[in-house]
């Protein structure tokens, strides 16, 4: 079955729930109809019959809410972009706030992807399922049957990675490369610079599954090399 068919089936499953709610509300509305205010009827008459568009309440009323929401969300984003604490990691620029970290490798990266890299040590049960590629970014996805996921990202533009997890960050050496490791409740992440590319490796385990062994994960980092070599 195709992807779109599956999505449609899932949408329709919830659609049935919506239809019931709509039918119940419509039935109650028909049983005991609301007497709409005169101002409402006038506005709707203008809108529906004449096509003249006029807002019920000044746009700014909702706009204020939206602006307030955006501002507060912006504050949350700024909290990470303007770090509260800058940690001193030799190989990385890290901005930390209580809830997240922005991580970027120190050093020059290439401008374009010239060689593709792959993970050569893959845990048992995983296989590469999907790959997306552009001139500056390649992402490879590996999955197993238990719902665990691995992503390897190779970027040529020194991406800033945001780790939205209160994870402990550790800088360590793997095969002569400086690697920043972050360990959360259900994920382990590594960021490093290798051969002019910024790499991100993430292991995410499904609920109730055990997290991958840390030493094995470090070995996975060390196993990333040019595809086919």
């Amino acid at each position, binding site marked *: 079955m195709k992807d779109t068919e599956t999505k449609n089936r899932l*949408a329709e499953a919830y*659609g049935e729930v919506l239809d019931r709610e*709509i039918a119940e*509300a419509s039935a109650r509305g028909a049983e005991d109809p609301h007497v709409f205010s005169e101002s409402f009827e006038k506005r709707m008459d203008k809108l529906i019959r004449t096509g003249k568009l006029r807002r019920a309440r000044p746009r700014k009323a909702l706009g204020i809410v939206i602006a307030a929401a955006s501002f507060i*969300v912006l504050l949350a984003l700024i909290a990470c972009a303007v770090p509260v604490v800058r940690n001193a990691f030799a190989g990385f620029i890290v901005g930390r706030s209580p809830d997240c970290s922005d991580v970027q490798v120190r050093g020059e990266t290439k401008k374009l992807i010239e060689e593709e890299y792959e993970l050569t040590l893959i845990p048992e049960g995983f296989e590469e399922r999907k790959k997306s590629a552009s001139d500056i970014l390649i992402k490879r996805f590996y999955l197993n049957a238990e*719902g665990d996921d691995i992503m390897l990202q190779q970027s040529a533009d020194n991406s800033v990675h945001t780790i939205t997890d209160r994870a402990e960050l550790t800088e360590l050496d793997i095969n002569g490369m400086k690697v920043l490791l972050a360990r959360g409740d259900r994920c382990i992440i590594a960021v490093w610079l290798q051969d002019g590319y910024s790499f991100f490796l993430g292991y995410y385990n499904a609920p109730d599954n055990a997290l991958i062994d840390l030493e094995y994960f470090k070995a996975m980092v060390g196993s990333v090399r040019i595809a086919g070599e």
Partner: protein
Amino acid sequence: MSVSMSETKDGKDLLVSLYDKYKQGLFVYICKYLDSPEDAEDVVHEVFLMLAEGGLGKLAGRNEKEISRFMFISAKNIARVIARKKRKTVSFEEFAEPYEPIPHFQAAELFIDRIIEEDLLEKAEAAMKTLDPKYADILYLYFKGLKVKELAEEYHARPETMRKRIYRALNALRNEVYKGDE
């Protein structure tokens, strides 16, 4: 010069038909989220304003059932915004993204592939029916083909924020499907 669907005769007829059929039900539905009938009336007006301003065009080709679903989901979203505005104190967490570890990659989207490969469709359909409506609404629109940018406009959010909400919703569905599996 482009003409919005509500300016065409067909568009106007459709708008009138939807209004006559659904205004009472919409009002009742919205009253679940708002205390004030005046606010509920404003939401009803906003919904049809949205349809008249281009919403009908976006829904072209969809049947009436799907249009009514879109309308009621939109009404819910507008009502939630107004309900939040009405509260005297609003905590930071109301508007800020709730803290939780978000998978840093597109694992959630690949779940659709797994549903097909692992023959989980029935389980997933059942899960959709019991999912928290805040996730189910988003997934309904997403699965029906709305792009991230369109969903962001619907939810008055930035596209990046909307992407995170979609991933959370997909993760919630995934957790529901695999719940109880050992």
